[in-house]
């Protein structure tokens, strides 16, 4: 069971965002998609979610996405965009319930299992007490947690998240990374675009490093996020250590 990207490339007009990329992403893993700004991470993630035109083929369990019905694909792949919000002042619970839309037939109301999935997703993201709050009155970090809960509520086998911890305080960053890791341990394929290499190294089971539109490193976090790779692709010198048996990779100094 895996998501397979076969020679996937993305072009915006005449500019190549992602060059031909082939990746086999098995379920039950938390893949950190990292790389400097403009590396093509978000474009690759959008292509995998079927949101931007691309060449090449993408298949889940050997079934091409193009052969899936609209809602079947929506039930298979959940996607959280980089900057998101709600355009109307609905409550957090109602926002999360929108994640259940792919499961509902035309005109069908939320069933007990949908309500349970909404509640579960809110609890996962430590947002249970926000359920009845209006989303336009939440803080940035609270809103980010509610939006992630919306993606979790889809309960899809593939979860693609674009910078899910960007606006969170350290405690909630750790919390969300742990939630994503637990999703992976329960069998979900989670692909997360991350800028925090420290958290990526600590929580991801695999790192895909992108630069200039292609994959330049792929494997175990410690192996891919080596000082040499960080120096070459990010232009930074890291502080590398181990703490309680886990890798610590901290960008420390800019290399001129």
């Amino acid at each position, binding site marked *: 069971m895996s998501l397979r990207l076969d020679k996937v490339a993305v072009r915006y007009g005449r500019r190549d965002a992602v060059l031909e990329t082939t990746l086999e992403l098995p379920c039950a893993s938390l893949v950190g998609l990292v790389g400097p700004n403009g590396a093509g991470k978000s474009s690759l993630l959008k292509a995998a979610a079927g949101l931007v035109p691309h060449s090449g083929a993408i298949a889940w369990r050997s079934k091409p996405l193009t052969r899936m019905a*609209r809602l079947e694909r929506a039930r298979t792949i959940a996607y959280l965009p980089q900057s998101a919000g709600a355009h*109307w002042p*609905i*409550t957090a619970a*109602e926002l999360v319930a*929108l994640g259940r839309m792919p499961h509902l037939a035309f005109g069908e109301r939320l069933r007990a299992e949908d309500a349970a999935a909404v509640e579960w997703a809110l609890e996962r993201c430590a947002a249970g007490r926000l359920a009845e709050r209006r989303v336009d009155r939440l803080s940035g970090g609270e809103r980010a947690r509610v939006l992630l809960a919306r993606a979790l509520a889809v309960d899809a086998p593939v979860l693609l998240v674009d910078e899910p911890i960007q606006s969170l305080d350290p405690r909630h960053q750790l919390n969300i990374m742990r939630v994503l890791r637990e999703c992976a341990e329960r069998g979900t394929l989670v692909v997360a675009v991350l800028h925090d290499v420290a958290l990526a190294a600590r929580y991801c089971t695999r790192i895909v490093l992108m630069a200039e539109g292609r994959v330049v490193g792929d494997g175990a976090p410690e192996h891919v996020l080596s000082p040499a790779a960080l120096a070459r692709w990010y232009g930074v010198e890291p502080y590398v250590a181990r703490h309680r048996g886990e890798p610590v990779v901290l960008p420390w100094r800019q290399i001129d």
Partner: protein
Amino acid sequence: MNGAALRAAGGTAWVLLVPLMLGAALLSLVIGRTSTGPTLGFGDAAIAGPVLMEIRLPRTLLALLVGGTLGLSGAALQGLLRNPLAEPGLLGASSGAALGAVLVFYFGLAAADSLVLPLGGVAGSVAALGLLYGLAGRRADLVTIVLAGIAINALAAALTSLALNFAPSPYAALEILFWMLGSLADRSAVHVWLALPLMLPGWLLIGAAARGLDALTLGEETAASLGFPPARTQWLVIGGTALSVGAAVAVTGVIGFVGLVVPHMLRPWVGHHPRRLLAPCFAAGAALTLLADVAIRLMPPGPELKLGVVTALIGAPFFLQLILKHGRESGG
């Protein structure tokens, strides 16, 4: 207000709106107007049947259909554009219909057959939609579509002014102006049967877009990832609006503010959910239009007020008050 309370409020919207709509329809059936002023009932027993069936019933049905269409399409467009200032005329369907009808007047065809005028309106609305589609393209983003709509509105307004400028006689110019003010007077069952076959598929298209509108609450990318591609929702709403609003304008002329104000009034009641807003807006739009048309018949004797004038007179202060309230809320 919590989620459960909001849902309950959505329920009370129905409990109030459906009786309001039916009550307004009943008033519209029993209240009439003659040269001496308003009348109650149907007059002599000998003419009661024809008065009810041939004058009051078509007029009531048309008010209901047109008002419902304006409320429904206003709610759908505001949901699509995620902007509470959108109104059914935004994308050119009503100005296209108006231009079509004006051209019928201009070429003196209106006298030939009472059906030519609404048919011209429908043709104008369909032409406006075709132009919009041609200008914007199938996969166009909303900004392009709104800009194309503005361009079509400007073009239709310019051509309408041109027709007025070169009107064959002052009488023809006056006729065009009066028609554009919007009215339900002197309409017959023929107009109902002309509008309904276009309105019905229009409503169905908007209904088919309902879930897509909910998904769009979270933005275009999330909506697409939930299985509701924005382009699909977009053309369902635009097609549905053009058909139903085009048909409405074709038979009554331009009736403003209903499609703008009604979704505004009801949005807090249904918890701001675009999908839950649709059906209540139909009922409320119908009720508002029916009551405005009844108010016209209650006026003292004299030239009959045009419906579009009355809805604007009711709508404008209401809208002003909403803006002031909005300013106070966002100002803290």
